[in-house]
């Protein structure tokens, strides 16, 4: 009985942007399977016509006057960056370089 396969766990890990080794994938497959079996008990409840409840307290999204306020100073925000270049956060390249022969965004 298996609600989730190791291959699906790998797909979820790719969506969640988390690197796992094979041992972790195997362990997670078992753990997620157990939790999914448990939460399946919700199917016993008839929720026909029940509106989803997205917040505990009903509220109207409040509006404030559209007046600019001072943001945090850029230097305060950048101070925590592990890598920066001048006033920018520095990251590895997002696209493969042309001399790699192209490729899809984000692949190495």
């Amino acid at each position: 009985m298996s609600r989730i396969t190791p291959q699906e766990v790998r797909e979820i890990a790719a969506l969640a942007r988390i690197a796992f080794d094979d041992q972790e994938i195997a362990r997670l497959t078992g753990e997620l399977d157990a939790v999914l079996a448990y939460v399946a008990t919700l199917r016993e409840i008839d929720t026909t016509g029940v509106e989803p409840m997205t917040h505990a307290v009903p509220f109207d999204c409040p509006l404030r006057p559209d007046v600019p306020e001072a943001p945090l100073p850029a230097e305060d925000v950048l101070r925590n960056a592990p890598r920066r270049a001048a006033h920018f956060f520095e990251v590895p390249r997002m696209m493969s370089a042309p001399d790699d022969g192209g490729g899809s965004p984000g692949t190495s």
Partner: protein
Amino acid sequence: MIDVAGAEIAELAGRVRRREIRARDVTEAFLDRVARFDGALGCYLRVDAGGARRRADAVDAAAAAGRDPGVLAGVPIALKDIFVTAGVETTCASRILRGFVPPYESTASARLAAAGAVMLGKLNMDEFAMGSSNENSARGPVRNPWALDCVPGGSSGGSAAAVAAGLCAGAAGTDTGGSIRQPAALCGVVGIKPTYGRVSRYGVVAFASSLDHPGPLGRTVDDTAALLEVMAGHDPRDATSIPAPAGGYRAAAAAGAHGLGGVTIGVPDEYFQPGLDAEVEAAVRAALDELARAGATLVPVSLPHTQYAVATYYLICTAEASSNLARYDGVRHGHRADGARTLDELYARTRGEGFGAEVKRRIMLGTYVLRAGYYEAYYGKALRVRRKVAEDFAAVFARCDALVTPTSPVPAFRLGERTADPLQMYMADVLTVAPALAGVPALSQGCGFTRAGLPVGLQIIGRPLDEQTVFRVAGAYQARTDWHTRRPPLTAVPATPQGQP
């Protein structure tokens, strides 16, 4: 010299305001206790002694100059490390936030500071508030002051243990599914999850936004009420903050001492099911008898969807967590994996290295249930069942002023006892998640001890926005009992030098 570690918050602040004692001396006394005793407990992730001394001196200077130093003048408090503090490292007990020094302050901690409270430091917790035992901290577990081989509960385990051991006069925590109430119960202190939106979430690191409730923990009902009176109130920086008058909690607690005439208390059958420890049940039943003697009318009630609350909670909180925790990517703050050649590789390796096992498990579950094709079957279903759970409460509150139940089905369990099975750990929250889903206020206070000397917690649940009745019932119970006067024995083990997560 008064016993500052044994004094109530109102007494401490009153003496500082009247200049009978100096805030600086109170702060030094607590810093000394932390240095002597926290090595055995592990409550503090970071002690900000220099900052605490500066804040205490400012309180003394204000009092000396004839200015009002605030209702919490000189009261030493500590914050769960989920509240961002300007200039003081904030990690959520995670490797991924190591070294993060926030450029701004949470509203809740800013309000406490503005009232004169002296922040001593940041407290240990389950990583990103995900856990029920404080064993999911990147900096190691917290030990229960009543039994060092037992957990303090979680996720606000450092907050509850520090208050119980007198390593701060009060603390701030957060409760998403029980994370204030369950550790309060396991450590024998008072903690309240107020109505959702009562206390601002601005500057509280997000776990599950529709369920995150900041709130206070204190040794007594009055201490907890005094802290909530300062923390509660509308904040334009939190769109879900409630624009309704707050306060009156100390007065309500004091009124409870005059009895509970006219108060109807519901006792939900579903909270007294198999799995409830016999000693816990006996203590809670005895507390119900005490509330009846105080004048309350007890009526049996039913909350039929209680058994589905844990499953509903874990679907919703993991879905929201998978979204909220997407921001930890090694770019703007905290941990960053070395040597990644592409942005995607940087994200995946940073998150793989930076998050602990439980956080990764919850992000994975949340990503799964939000996935195209599964969304309605899991997340959509859970949102509909959440409404059924909330409707249960609305129905019983039509004829009850409050509900009284156990907080945790079991007293503190041993370190390591439940870590192997995530599902078993999730069941620690079985009596606290439903009020969180409904957003109603709920408080835990001590109502006895097991034969092994472990505290038992009593949960008092109120109508939305009616914290006053919750405090009235809690005040009535405390006035007739003396559990809150007991103190755990402390072992002198100096705090270890500050490490890194």
